[in-house]
């Protein structure tokens, strides 16, 4: 099966600019996640979707970050305006279902550099 697709792979922007990342999960996967991974740290969950509904966005900085998953398939994550501390790799992942005992499949990530 095709994996989780993310684009772009790399993005460099100036602070206060806006940026958007795109994710296409594995076909049939109901659950989609966005993670932020700062260099040298573990991935931090930003938002989790179940189909097109939000399950958990407790760690999403809602004043500048937004995410949507229209039609329960593709998803976009937006940052507006970006800050220097947003420099990180943004990882998208998907899993088949809720109910535990299932693994997450990750895309290769988008490396964001804010200058």
């Amino acid at each position, binding site marked *: 099966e095709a994996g989780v697709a993310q684009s772009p792979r790399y993005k460099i922007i100036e602070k206060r600019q806006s940026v958007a990342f795109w994710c296409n999960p594995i076909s049939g996967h109901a659950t989609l996640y966005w993670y932020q991974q700062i260099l040298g740290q*573990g991935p931090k969950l930003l938002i989790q979707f179940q189909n097109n509904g939000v399950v958990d966005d407790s760690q999403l900085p809602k004043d500048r970050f937004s995410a949507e998953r229209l039609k329960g398939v593709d998803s976009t994550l937006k940052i507006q305006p970006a800050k220097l501390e947003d420099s990180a790799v943004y990882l998208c*992942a998907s899993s088949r279902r809720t109910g*535990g005992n299932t693994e997450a499949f990750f895309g290769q990530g988008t490396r964001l550099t804010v200058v």
Partner: protein
Amino acid sequence: SQQGEEDPQALSIQEGENATMNCSYKTSINNLQWYRQNSGRGLVHLILIRSNEREKHSGRLRVTLDTSKKSSSLLITASRAADTASYFCATVKDAGNQFYFGTGTSLTVIP
């Protein structure tokens, strides 16, 4: 924080040796999973252990889970240079299937 913590932060061994890394967490869990991340890549699932299991094997991997101590360990036997990567534990708290990752162990296997 719901994140786990791995130790050591970094581990360097010779090819053929065994590598052990540990994960501690704070909350009750449904299951615990281990993932591997090569430099510049996404994470890849290695193994899942349920909260009612104590030990699990998969190839050269052996995972243990002690829910009373809220800890897990990952053992990689007969390591290879290709095992060089960062390893993360992820706790899954309940049926909501939120994955919370630890801080990771960076493993270097020297040929």
